[in-house]
């Protein structure tokens, strides 16, 4: 649960179902944190998705007017190729939207699937646990560097990295949840009335583990933004000329004295996104996981 990659673990003890105090989803999300976080994220991502409408310039349209400060024509000024920065920031958000939308669910899905397998299969569990150990040993950036080497820098590398980071996170979480749930009375009760193991797994255990997974998902989204930034920052991220928050930030740092707004734009957006996702996670944590 951090800005630092992969520290996104929730203590296994948190996998407690809200037995006895389950309220409607809305009520559980009523905490201000979740709503604030959601609002931030929706605002930022919405702006990104609406970039073609909102952006005043093409994100790649170069001009001779390089590194101009903010003005009426360019609200955030221009970059070193005379491109409009606001438009680039808006389009840059799209990249992060894509990465988070494509990679986090994929990683979560694969991780959860492996975790389920690990949770129900004792011998496989031993193997998979060691595998997770190894995967977790590759911290996000180490994994990113390695993948970028194989795959070449670019969005695909980031997506693969985010997937790779999330697999063991969700895997562990799911597995722990399954193991903590599988001997509970309600699971045994379901077995006793004749429900088959797969149905027990998917109808009973999984839905009751989902709270922890949702919280992890929120954290993973912020992690994805972070990974994009860090990878782009070390130069193995999104390919030019496509803008991304991380790559904008990375380049902007050279031009702090020319156009401070260059750095400011992406910095504010990245920070806002990370805070937004974390607020959501915090809110969900309080609402869903509280015992």
């Amino acid at each position: 649960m951090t800005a630092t990659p992969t520290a996104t673990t929730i203590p296994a003890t948190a996998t407690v179902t809200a037995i006895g105090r389950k309220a409607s989803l809305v009520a559980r999300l009523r905490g201000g944190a979740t709503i604030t976080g959601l609002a931030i994220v929706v605002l930022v991502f919405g702006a990104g998705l609406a970039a073609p409408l909102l952006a005043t310039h093409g994100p790649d349209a170069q001009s001779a007017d390089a590194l101009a400060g903010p003005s009426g024509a360019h609200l955030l000024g221009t970059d070193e190729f005379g491109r409009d920065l606001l438009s680039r920031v808006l389009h840059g958000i799209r990249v992060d939207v894509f990465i988070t939308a494509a990679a986090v669910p994929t990683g979560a899905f694969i991780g959860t699937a492996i975790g389920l397998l690990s949770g129900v299969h004792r011998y496989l569990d031993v193997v998979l646990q060691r595998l997770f150990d190894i995967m977790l040993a590759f911290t996000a950036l180490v994994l990113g560097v390695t993948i970028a080497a194989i795959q070449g820098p670019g969005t695909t590398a980031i997506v693969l990295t985010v997937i790779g980071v999330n697999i063991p996170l969700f895997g562990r979480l799911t597995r722990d949840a399954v193991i903590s749930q599988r001997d509970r009375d309600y699971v045994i009760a379901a077995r006793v009335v004749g429900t088959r193991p797969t149905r027990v797994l998917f109808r009973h255990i999984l839905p009751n583990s989902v709270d922890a997974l949702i919280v992890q998902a929120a954290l993973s989204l912020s992690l994805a933004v972070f990974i994009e930034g860090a990878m782009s920052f070390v130069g193995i991220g999104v390919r030019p000329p496509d803008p991304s928050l991380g790559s904008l930030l990375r380049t902007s740092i050279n031009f702090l004295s020319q156009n401070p707004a260059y750095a400011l734009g992406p910095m504010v957006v990245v920070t806002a996104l990370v805070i937004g996702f974390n607020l959501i996670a915090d809110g969900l944590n309080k609402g869903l996981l509280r015992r």
Partner: protein
Amino acid sequence: MLAYSLRRVPSALLVLLVASMLVFAVLRLAPGDPAVVLAGPDPTPQAVEAVRTQLGLDDSLASQYFHWLGGLLTGDLGDSYILGAPIATLIGSGLGATLELTLAALVLAILIGGTLGLALGAGRRRTVRTGAGAVTGLAFAVPPYVSGVLLVLLFSIAWPILPAAGRVALLDDPEIAAQYLLMPALCLALPAAAVIARFLAASLRRVQDEDFVQTGIAKGISARRLLFRHVLPNALPPVITALGIQIGQLLGGAIVVEAIFAWPGIGQLLLNAVLGRDYLLVQDLLLLAVAVSVILQTVTDLAHAAIDPRLRPEAR
């Protein structure tokens, strides 16, 4: 306790063996060839071929793998393809720098995170809790590559009191070295501190609800003693787990921070080795990362046992 650590050895070795295969395979999937890098700019194909032979890259993959593994078992890490130097020396010097950085960051993270966590989780006044929450949130949300740059702008350029880049070994000249160390360590420590603060705060809140705390109050002991003798120790285990993970993270995060502050550590070494397809060096470094995380896990478990008598072997 020793017996307990020993019992983990087989499983650790297995992990390392599997990891060694993965690590060996992984980079060889990458396009690019260290021989080309080594042959210098504008090389002739003959030159590249000669370098390949010289490095042993024309051997079969299996033989390369076993050669590497054999070397490892006899304590020979091999020579770096690109840098030429023995890898043991390279890792030795880089590891020193990285350890210095991560340890300093760890200390800072524990100090900052611990303070914030206590304020956040056990602060009496609402303002204290809110303030700590805001600081934690910010430390959490600002990635090191942003905070690093901001720190440099502030303390090296706007108000030049700390060096912007480079390192002096702590043992050589502690006074000067500390000044080099401060900013990178802080930059690396902040996110970790935020994580620690959050885990600690959450854990403190949870423990404060436990029955034995009521017992303590009913006994009439002071709030301070209650916090530090009863609540805090019981709140530590999840924090230790988080800390174990964070140390791994610090080592990983070092890649970015070392780049920003030109800190000559493992992170730089790894990044350049991967870019240069310095197979052996990358293999050794990645395997080292796995080994470190295996060790960290054991240490974490031992730390748990040190705190909690229920987990000690004699209690089983």
